[in-house]
C-alpha cells in the first residue's frame, strides 16, 4: 500500500512533465497536421538553457534565494526556448509548407539530430549535474519500514505545472488568440478569409509549445538534477505516446495521457522490472495505435460538412 501511494506521487510528478511536453506535440499536430519530431530535443535544449541560466544566476549573479533563482530560470528558459522553436519553424518547416506531406517530417527529424548533436558538441557528451536545489519533504505515511514522502520538489513541479496549464488553458479557450488558433486548426482557409494571419498563428503555436516544454525542462532539471544531450529522445517519445494515448490534437488529452504514462512507468518500475520501463511506454504506443488510434479524448470524425 505504501509503495503504491509513493509511486502514485512519483508517477504524477513524472506525468506532469510528460504532459507539458505532450501539449507541444498535440498543438502542432492539431494546427498543421505534422508530428514535430524535434520537439523532444527542444525540451532537451530547454533543460540546458535552464542549466546554464541556473549557473549564471547562482554563481555569477549570486542570487541565493531558491525561489527567485528558479523563477528567473523558468522565465529565461521559456523565453529562449520559444525563440529557438520559433526559429526552427521559420527555417525548417515553413518553407516546406505546401510541399509533399513527408517533407516537414523529414526536416523535423533532421532538426532533431541537429539539436542533439549541437548540444553534444557545445556542452559535451557527459551528464551535467547541478547540486540539489530544493531539499526536504513531508512524510505522509509512516509504515515503519517504508515511508511515503512528498518532497518539496514534487510539490513545486505540481504547482508550477498546474499554474501554467491553467494559464495556457485560459489563453486557448478564452482569448482571441486562442480562438484564432482553434480556427486555424479547423479550417485554415476560412480563418484567413476572416482576417487571421495563419502563418503568424502557427508561429505562436510553436512558441507556446516550446514555452511549455521549457517549463517541463526546468522542472526536469530541478527534479533530477542531471541532464544529458540525449535526454530529448526518450522523454520525447514518451510525451508523444502520451499525446497519442490522450488523443492527438486534444489538449486535455495530452495532459491526461502524460499523467497516465507517468503513472504506468512508475508503477511498472515498482512492481515489475525497472529495466523494462521504457519498453512499457513504447508498447503502450503500439497498442494504442492499433486498438485506440483516436486516443482517449480523440475527436470522433462525425461532423456535418
Amino acid at each position, binding site marked *: 500500500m505504501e509503495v503504491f501511494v509513493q509511486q502514485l506521487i512519483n508517477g504524477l510528478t513524472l506525468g506532469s512533465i510528460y504532459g507539458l511536453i505532450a501539449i507541444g506535440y498535440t498543438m502542432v499536430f492539431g494546427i498543421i497536421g505534422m508530428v514535430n519530431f524535434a520537439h523532444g530535443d527542444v525540451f532537451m535544449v530547454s533543460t540546458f538553457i535552464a542549466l546554464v541560466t541556473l549557473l549564471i544566476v547562482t554563481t555569477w549573479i549570486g542570487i541565493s534565494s531558491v525561489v527567485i533563482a528558479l523563477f528567473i530560470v523558468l522565465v529565461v528558459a521559456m523565453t529562449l526556448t520559444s525563440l529557438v522553436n520559433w526559429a526552427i519553424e521559420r527555417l525548417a518547416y515553413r518553407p516546406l509548407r505546401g510541399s509533399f506531406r513527408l517533407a516537414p517530417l523529414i526536416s523535423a527529424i533532421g532538426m532533431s539530430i541537429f539539436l542533439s548533436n549541437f548540444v553534444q558538441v557545445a556542452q559535451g557528451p557527459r551528464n551535467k549535474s547541478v547540486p540539489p536545489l530544493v531539499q526536504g519533504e513531508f512524510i505522509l505515511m509512516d509504515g515503519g519500514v517504508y515511508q511515503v514522502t512528498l518532497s518539496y520538489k514534487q510539490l513545486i513541479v505540481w504547482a508550477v505545472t498546474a499554474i501554467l496549464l491553467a494559464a495556457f488553458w485560459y489563453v486557448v479557450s478564452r482569448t482571441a488568440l486562442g480562438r484564432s488558433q*482553434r480556427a486555424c486548426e*479547423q479550417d485554415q482557409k*476560412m480563418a484567413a478569409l*476572416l*482576417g*487571421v494571419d*495563419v502563418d503568424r498563428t502557427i508561429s505562436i503555436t510553436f512558441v507556446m509549445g516550446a514555452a511549455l516544454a521549457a517549463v517541463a525542462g526546468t522542472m526536469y532539471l530541478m527534479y533530477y538534477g542531471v541532464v544529458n544531450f540525449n535526454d530529448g529522445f526518450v522523454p520525447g517519445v514518451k510525451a508523444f505516446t502520451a499525446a497519442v494515448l490522450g488523443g492527438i490534437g486534444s489538449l486535455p488529452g495530452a495532459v491526461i495521457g502524460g499523467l497516465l504514462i507517468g503513472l504506468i512507468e512508475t508503477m511498472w518500475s515498482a512492481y515489475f522490472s525497472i529495466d523494462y520501463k521504457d519498453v512499457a511506454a513504447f508498447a503502450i504506443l503500439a497498442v494504442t495505435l492499433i486498438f485506440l488510434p483516436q486516443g482517449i479524448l480523440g475527436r470522433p470524425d462525425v*461532423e456535418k460538412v
Partner: protein
Amino acid sequence: MTEPLLSIRGVKASYGHVAALKGVDLDVSEGEIVTLIGANGAGKSTLMMTVFGKPRAHAGQIIYSGEDITRRPTHLIARMRIAQAPEGRRIFARMSVYENLQMGAAVNPDADFEQNLEHVLGLFPRLAQRLHQRGGTLSGGEQQMLAIARALMGKPRLLLLDEPSLGLAPLIAQQIFDIIHELNARDRLTVFLVEQNAYHALKLAHRGYVMVNGLITMAGSGRDLLERPEVKAAYLEGGRH
C-alpha cells in the same frame, strides 16, 4: 460614373494545370447587388475565392476600393472589410455559434461587437436561441444562417455570398433573399452573389452576369437577363421558378 468598389479585370486563375478562370471582367459598384449565375463547374466559386487570393490570379487585376489587391495576402484582404460566406459554409464545427460570430467580428476591431451581435441576431433569431450550441451540430440551414451572420459581424462594405440559398427550404431561402435585399436597401451594403436559384437571385439584383466555362458570356441588368431566351433556357428551366 464613379469607380466601382470591386473591379475584376482579365483575371485568370487555375488549379495546377486546370484553368478555372480564363480572363474574367466583372464590376461591382458601391450599393449594388450583383448576381453571378452559371452552370456547375463554371468557375463561380473560384472567382469569389480569387478575390481573396485563394487561388491567386496569375493574370489580370483585382481592384478594390481603388487599391490593387491582386497579390495581397488573404488575411489583409479580409481586413479591408470584404467578407465572404463561402461555398460549403465552412463554419467552425468545434466552436460555439457565439465563438463563430466572434471570429467574424475579429476582422474589424473598430466595430461595436455587442451592437453588431444584436443586429445580426435580429436578422437570424434562430441563432439567438442556439448561441452556445456547437456549430457542427446545427442543421444545414442554421449553418447557412451562421455563415452569413459571421460574415456580417465584421461590418463589411462588400459581402460575397456563394449560394446562400443552397439546401434551404423555399420559405427560408426567400427569407434569406429578403434579408439580403433589406441589408442592401437599408444599410447600403454592397452584395456580390452567386446563385443557382437564378430567378430569385436575378430578380433581387441590380445587375447580373452569366459565366460559362471560366468566362463571362452575358451581362446586364437583372431584369434584362431574366428576359433573355438563352438565360431562360439554360438557367430558368423554361421559366419554372
